[in-house]
């Protein structure tokens, strides 16, 4: 095989990752006694066959893209932020808390800003622990995920529980704050644009500004960064906080666009899957968009697999997990920060 030109190698590896992922999924299905061909076809159909399917895929891809942009930024800056899940939850919590107080459509930017601030603040905790106390952000962001989860769990069972006290969930935020759904009866909402916008802004910032350059230098070589007079502490703070803000925004968008309230199982693991999204995108903010669509399609396809073939939920989950693993195995090489 001739050596691929430099510019094509990254996309080629991503495509190889997707191919390996499909093979892994097919192999699991095959082992479980299903014909993988028709089953994969069903998954593809559930994810892309028609406007409804496509809308569902994009709805799932939106939080994945926002979290994925955040994770990609952190990875670029050499910060292994695996806390997008917790940062997203904190963002959702802030959005609900603000959304329950403010009932006007004008407050929407404020609600989303508070979501981003909460996510960023949550990640900043980890950044501060790292620079002040030398705590690895891998540990601290993971721990903060648990704290965020149980905080939400307690709040929806206690102080923030709906007035009816029937189910562990908050009240809905005011209808004026809901993101518009175009293409009913699908759930496609305006948050898709926010995700695309965030990816574009992140791309522009990362590659065309001085602070973006500093971030990349720190990620590529901390020593070079220090030699060039770049403060590793401040840059690490910036990388993690921006990363958390993206994840927090994902939580806010998910609240206003889809769930409209908060409950324990708010995220089916978007924050964790975003790590795989960022790796599949080879840490490129724009690459995150197609990667997020791939994983959104996987989520929707797995549900479609259950509906159509009668594959049990557990097996559909295993297929999904193997696909993610294959993606990480192929695209994760030399890409995650050391």
């Amino acid at each position: 095989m001739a050596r691929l030109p430099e510019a094509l190698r990254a996309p080629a590896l991503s495509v190889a990752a997707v191919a390996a992922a499909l093979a892994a999924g097919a192999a699991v299905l095959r082992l479980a006694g299903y014909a993988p061909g028709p089953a994969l076809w069903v998954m593809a159909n559930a994810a892309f066959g028609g406007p409804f399917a496509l809308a569902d895929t994009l709805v799932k891809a939106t939080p994945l893209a926002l979290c994925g942009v955040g994770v990609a930024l952190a990875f670029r800056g050499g910060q292994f932020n695996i806390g997008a899940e917790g940062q997203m939850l904190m963002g959702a919590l802030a959005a609900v808390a603000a959304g329950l107080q403010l009932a006007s459509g004008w407050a929407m930017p404020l609600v989303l800003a508070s979501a981003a601030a909460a996510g960023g603040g949550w990640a900043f905790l980890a950044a501060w622990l790292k620079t002040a106390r030398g705590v690895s952000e891998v540990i601290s962001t993971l721990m903060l995920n648990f704290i965020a989860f149980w905080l939400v769990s307690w709040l929806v069972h206690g102080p923030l529980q709906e007035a009816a006290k029937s189910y562990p969930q908050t009240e809905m935020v005011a209808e004026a704050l809901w993101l518009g759904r175009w293409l009913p009866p699908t759930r496609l909402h305006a948050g898709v644009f926010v995700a695309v916008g965030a990816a574009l802004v992140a791309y522009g910032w990362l590659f065309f500004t001085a602070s973006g350059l500093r971030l990349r230098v720190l990620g590529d070589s901390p020593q070079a960064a220090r030699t060039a007079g770049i403060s590793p502490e401040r840059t690490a703070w910036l990388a993690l906080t921006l990363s958390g803000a993206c994840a927090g925004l994902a939580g806010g968008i998910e609240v206003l666009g889809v769930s409209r309230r908060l409950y324990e199982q708010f995220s089916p693991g978007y924050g964790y899957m975003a790590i795989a999204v960022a790796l599949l995108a080879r840490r490129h903010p724009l690459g995150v968009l197609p990667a997020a669509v791939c994983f959104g399609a996987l989520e929707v396809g797995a549900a479609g697999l259950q509906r159509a073939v009668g594959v049990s939920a557990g097996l559909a989950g295993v297929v999904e997990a193997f696909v993610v693993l294959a993606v990480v195995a192929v695209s994760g090489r030399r890409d995650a920060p050391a």
Partner: protein
Amino acid sequence: MSFVPARLARRSWLLCVLSGIWLVGGIACGGRAPDAPPSQPGSAGAPDANRPDSDKKPRVALLSPGPISDDGWNAFGYDALKIIEKELGCEVRQQQVNDSPADREQGFRAFAQEGFDVVIGHGGEFADQALAVARDFPNTTFVVTAGDKAAPNVVSVVFDTGQASYLAGAIAATLSKTGRAGAIGGQNIPASARNLYAFRNGARAVNPNMEVAVAFIGSWTDTAAARQQALAMIDKGADFIIHDCDAAAAGVFQAVKERDIRAFGMQKDQSHLAPDHIIGSPTSNPQGLAEVVRRILQKEQKGEVVHLGLKDNAVGFAVKKGVISKELEGKLNALTLAIQKGEIDVFKEQP
């Protein structure tokens, strides 16, 4: 030089992936897997517009909040679906959805969009999403088991299993030596709470001083938490335990066996799970749910909250033979009759 082996390794590794795809792909397109499901996966995901008109089998789908292998609530829903398939000649599908309103809504929308005639959300927590989706799909009827809301195309079916728990409470109060019993729920949701407090009401109807501890473990699957809760209750003197915590009940039965006390099942006759200890189970009859679906398909059912209980034969009490004395049996029959006539409100006392 390390350069060559690295490149070689990468190449062979790529080859490996390609051959893997070829292999799996070849098998896939070559023929159907040995036990491929009968529901024709190829056509399954296609939109309803592509379906031939001659194929007019009504289509019914079930959204389960947990695994259908739980021997309880979800198994009961799946039993109903099988009855609907066999006796009503429907095409049926089932999907398990995460415990999240967003996923429940997605499940409803996905089936409705495929043109299903009836979509069942199996649990009261599906009610809000059913109402939201029902507006967009007027040609689909949404059924919510244990729901409390209705709309022109939303039917809620409430199985008053609590009527049978009431009987279980009466048995516990009659046979208990300590005067204490325990009731363990999954999440503290209305359907589950009603069941357990009906048990307490039944116990107190026989013995007003009966102490019945009610606790919720916050999960439908956490067997360890269920066992701990049961052990705690038993250590405080409970010698009868009833549960409504679905798959987590395995932990309750484990504790009951360890301490050798008696217990009740729930939803289905669960006596096989602890044959020496379970003396009866309040049951819901899946036929009741199938009957509501039949009425919907025949356009006989309007959107309302349907209550089904002992008198409709939709709720029953599966009792183990030989445990109940003649005298107690007479008492139970009298209570059953009173409940059927509506003379006793088993849900009277709630927390």
